[in-house]
Each structure stands twice: as structure tokens, then as C-alpha cells.
């Protein structure tokens, strides 16, 4: 059973994970004491590089893998003791859409309907509805081996929705997609969330987590190293920056001295300086005034809000893309 502490703290949470662990037979500790809670109707972004433990966590939460330790409940059910009830409540779209290339989109949706106990007529109706929803109706009767990556992802999402799940698990749903397909999938996920579906999303893309997630958990080497709203996490980095690009590079030293009164100044590139200041965008006017008074011409000024990439660097000491793949994640 879960501790009273967790139960009280996370009352109403759809996903509750407590001290979750997974150690592979090779000795690799892929998940190392993960705790998290996802509220009903929330989009939770699970961010981390390859091998960080994202997919292993999702496989445990979707009952595909047994944890080595700890507990997890999804939609009110224990993932080990009540795996069958969990499976009825969740939709799953795992990494690299696993779709039979010798079936058509419609056939796959109908098969998924059967797996979830829909009657044949009901399954056919639901397939039509979902094919419309994900803009695949014109391709419904084509074999999957003629679908593009984006079409496969959309069909994968549709299959996860056949039985109208309360909770949707998406493991890197846009990996490998072009920007247009990615934006289209994001829009569909927002729509689903507005309809009340709780979404647990793993991603390597910081932008994706920022765009979609209400809250983000950052996982590295099997441990959650930071968690919060993208804005909360942004504050972990420190003060926002103002990037100032000068027209004359030779004036950089003078500008650095003058701007020190506004905040910490650092060089970014030739002719460019970054000033860290708690005032954020409100510091633009005084900074420009200071430079103008010294007859230093400004080419551009930009506000640099901290990104999740900065957060990742701040909390792990390395950039997300620095971690090589290869380990089972």
C-alpha cells in the first residue's frame, strides 16, 4: 500500500509513483527511486536524454515491465496488483509507432477495438470517427507501408484513443517527425487534454515540453532531478538575460564596464553581451539609455527567457544532447 503521506499529498492524482525502481539483469539501474504525482486533466512532460529512464518508467506505468521496487498507481489501480484494470484505463503510444505494415489503418483500428472489447459494429464506427479526427480518412484503406512517419504517428495516437482512455501515455510521440507533423500532433494533444484526458508525455525535446506540459519532470540517470511548471523550472536557472548586440565590436569592453551597474555581464559572441538582471524586459530602456549616452550604437536587444535546456544544464551539469543513447532507457 502507499504511504499515508503520499495518499494525502496526492489525493486526486491520476498517476502516483513512489520510490519506483527498475534494475535490469545487467545491473543497470534504469529507474532509481522516482517519485511523482500527476493530477487528473494534467499534461505531464517527462524530459530527459536517451538512457535517462523515461521509457523504462513509461513501460512500468503501462504494465509492460515490473518494477524492481517501489509502487505506482495509474487511474486508481496498482500497476502490478491490478494490471488488467490499469490496461483498461490507459491508452499507450510507445516509441516508434509499432504498426503492422501489412494492415490498413482501418484494419488496425478495428483490431485495437477488438482488443479493448468493442463489438464489431462499434469498432467500425469508432475507427471511422478516429480516422476523421486524425485526418487519415482518405488513407484509411491503404496499407501502412505506404504511410509517412507523421501519418503513422497520428494513427498510433488514434489507436491509443480507441477505447476513450482516461490516461494517455505517449513515449516520444514526435521523435523523427518534421515540424509540420509535430505541430499537428501537438495541436491534437492539446485538444485531447481540453476534453479531459490526462497525458503523460516523454520527450527529448525541450521545446515540446515547454509547448505542451503543465508540469515537467526532468529525469537523469534514473532520478528526477527537477520538477515543476516550465516557468518554475526557468527560475532555477536564475535571472533572465538580455542579449545586446553592438554594431561596433570594438566598443564591447566599454559597454561591458558601463552595463555592469545593471547586472552580471558576460560575452556571448563577437559584438554581443548578455546581461543577467532580475528586471528582465524592464531593463531594456535603462540599458539602451546607458549605451546611448556613451554613444555606443546598438544593433539589437533581445530578452532571453531561460529555456528547459538551460534548466537541464543547471540541474544536471550537462546538456540534454550530451548524453549518448545506447542504454536501454
Amino acid at each position: 500500500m502507499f504511504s499515508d503521506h503520499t495518499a494525502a499529498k496526492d489525493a486526486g492524482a491520476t498517476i502516483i509513483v513512489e520510490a519506483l525502481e527498475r534494475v535490469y539483469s545487467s545491473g543497470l539501474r534504469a529507474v532509481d527511486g522516482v517519485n511523482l504525482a500527476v493530477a487528473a486533466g494534467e499534461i505531464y512532460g517527462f524530459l530527459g536524454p536517451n538512457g535517462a529512464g523515461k521509457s523504462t518508467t513509461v513501460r512500468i506505468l503501462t504494465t509492460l515491465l515490473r518494477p524492481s521496487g517501489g509502487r505506482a498507481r495509474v487511474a486508481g489501480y496498482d500497476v502490478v496488483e491490478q494490471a488488467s484494470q490499469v490496461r483498461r484505463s490507459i491508452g499507450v503510444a510507445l516509441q516508434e509507432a509499432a504498426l503492422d505494415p501489412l494492415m490498413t489503418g482501418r484494419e488496425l483500428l478495428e483490431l485495437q477495438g477488438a482488443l479493448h472489447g468493442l463489438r464489431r459494429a462499434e469498432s467500425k464506427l469508432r475507427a471511422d470517427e478516429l480516422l476523421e479526427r486524425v485526418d487519415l480518412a482518405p488513407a484509411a484503406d491503404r496499407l501502412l507501408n505506404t504511410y509517412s512517419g507523421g501519418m503513422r504517428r497520428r494513427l498510433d495516437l488514434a489507436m491509443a484513443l480507441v477505447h476513450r482512455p482516461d490516461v494517455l501515455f505517449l513515449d516520444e510521440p514526435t521523435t523523427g517527425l518534421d515540424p509540420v507533423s509535430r505541430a499537428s500532433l501537438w495541436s491534437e494533444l492539446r485538444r485531447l487534454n481540453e476534453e479531459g484526458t490526462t497525458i503523460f508525455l516523454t520527450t527529448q525535446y525541450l521545446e515540446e515540453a515547454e509547448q505542451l506540459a503543465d508540469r515537467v519532470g526532468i529525469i537523469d540517470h534514473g532520478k528526477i532531478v527537477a520538477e515543476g511548471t516550465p516557468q518554475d523550472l526557468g527560475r532555477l536557472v536564475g535571472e533572465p538575460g538580455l542579449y545586446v548586440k553592438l554594431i561596433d565590436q570594438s566598443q564591447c569592453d566599454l559597454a561591458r564596464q558601463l552595463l555592469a551597474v545593471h547586472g552580471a555581464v558576460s560575452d556571448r559572441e563577437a559584438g554581443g553581451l548578455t546581461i543577467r538582471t532580475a528586471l528582465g524586459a524592464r531593463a531594456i530602456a535603462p540599458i539602451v539609455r546607458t549605451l546611448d549616452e556613451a554613444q555606443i550604437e546598438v544593433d539589437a536587444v533581445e530578452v532571453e527567457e531561460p529555456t528547459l535546456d538551460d534548466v537541464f544544464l543547471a540541474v544536471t551539469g550537462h546538456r540534454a544532447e550530451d548524453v549518448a543513447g545506447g542504454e536501454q532507457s
Partner: protein
Amino acid sequence: MSTRGLAYTGGVGFALWRRSLLELARVRGGLLPTTVAPLIFLLGSLGQFGRLDQLVGFPTTSYIAWLVPLSCLQAAGFAGGATGANLARDIEAGWFDRLLSSPAPRPLLILGPVMAAVTRCLVPVTVIFIAGLLLGPGLTGGAFGLFMLYLAAISFSIVASLWGITLALRAKSQQVGPLIQNGVFIAVFLSTAYTPLPFLKGWLAVAAPYNPVTYVLQMGRQATVSGIEPSWAHTWPGLLALAGMMLFFGLLALRQLRRVDR
């Protein structure tokens, strides 16, 4: 089980079986290997050992009558084994995860490949049987013998499928494919595949009586071998052997399925 439960089970079973039929229909030449290999074995063995039927005490005067049930069983075994290899492919491709993450009862996920094995074996078994008949042997066992041959072949495809499923679930890799088919080949080879028990010598004479496939072959040979007339005595050992193998490999497959999330 409730009516709704039965309907659900039937629905899932049908859906998975339909998928295997679609694959059969859409992969051109998908059945060729399991049909051609036993046919080549049939013709090759006929050339190699064709005069064995002239030995005193050989239970038929037509060696091809002795070989046709063997080739049918080989074809059924290869077809069954192929479903195990296909399952390994599904596991590698992530398709099996989709099935595992559905609420369908886990044993049904095994039933799909098994039903596929039965369907897949019917084509090569029928082609080989017809080819064999065209080459000479008559249907000495009549309708009963023919029924026993098909029952033996279909049941053996189920056994091979369960063996393949067990290995696929264990290895989770397509690399297990040759091992599955080698297992089928060895099981058939270490029996009365080419000669009756009294003609065997040495280690094979010791091994063959303990090999259940020997009795499955005997059951199937009631169709074409005049010296093995259709009778209960020639039937029950085969039925027992098949039931035993199905139970053994079925339990192994289920055990492996229970461990798939570890």
C-alpha cells in the same frame, strides 16, 4: 465465463486470427518455404531411400506412401514454427507491446499465433498430400486415415507453434528463428521418419521409441501405409503423444508469457 466474456474472448481470438490471414494473403510467396522445403525432402528422400520398400517386413510396397505423411508433418511443423518466428518479429518491432498493453487476457495473445499456425499449415500439407498422391501411393486408410493424417499434422503445427512461441518469448529476438526450425527438424528426424522401428539401428533405435513424434507419424501413416491399417491401436498413442506435447509446450509458453514483463 459470462456470455459477454465469451464474446470478448471470441472477438479477440477472431481479430488476431484475421490478422494472420491478412498476412498470409498479402505476403506473396509467404507459404513457399514451408511448402517447398518438405517437397524437396520428399523427392530427395525418395531418390535416396526409395528401394527400402523392397526389404522384407517393410510395411508398404510403396516408399513414397511411407514418406508422404512424414513430409506433411514436416510442413506442418515448419508452418507452426514460423508463427513463433513471426512472434519474435512482432516482439522486436514493438507490436507485441501493443497487445500486452491491451486488457486482452494474456493466454489469448498466444492463441492468435496458434490459430495462425493451424491456418498456415493447411496449405502446404494439402499441396504435399496431393503431390504425393500424384506420385503413386493410394489412400489406403480411406476417410478415417485421411482424417488422422490431417489431425496429426494440424496438432503437430500447434505443438511446433507453442515451441516457437516459448522460444520467441524467451529470446525476444528474431535470431531465435533457426533454433525453432532446427528443433522441429530434429524432433521429426529422431523418429521413424525414414524407416520403421524394427529397421532402426544403434542410438536411433534407442531414441525413436521415446520420441512422441514416432507415434504421431504412426497415426498419420494410417492414411497411406497399407501395413498400418486404420485402428484405435494405431491412433491412441499418437493422440496421447500430441496431447502430452501440447500440454507440455503450452505450459512452457504460458510460463514464459507470465515472465515477459520481468
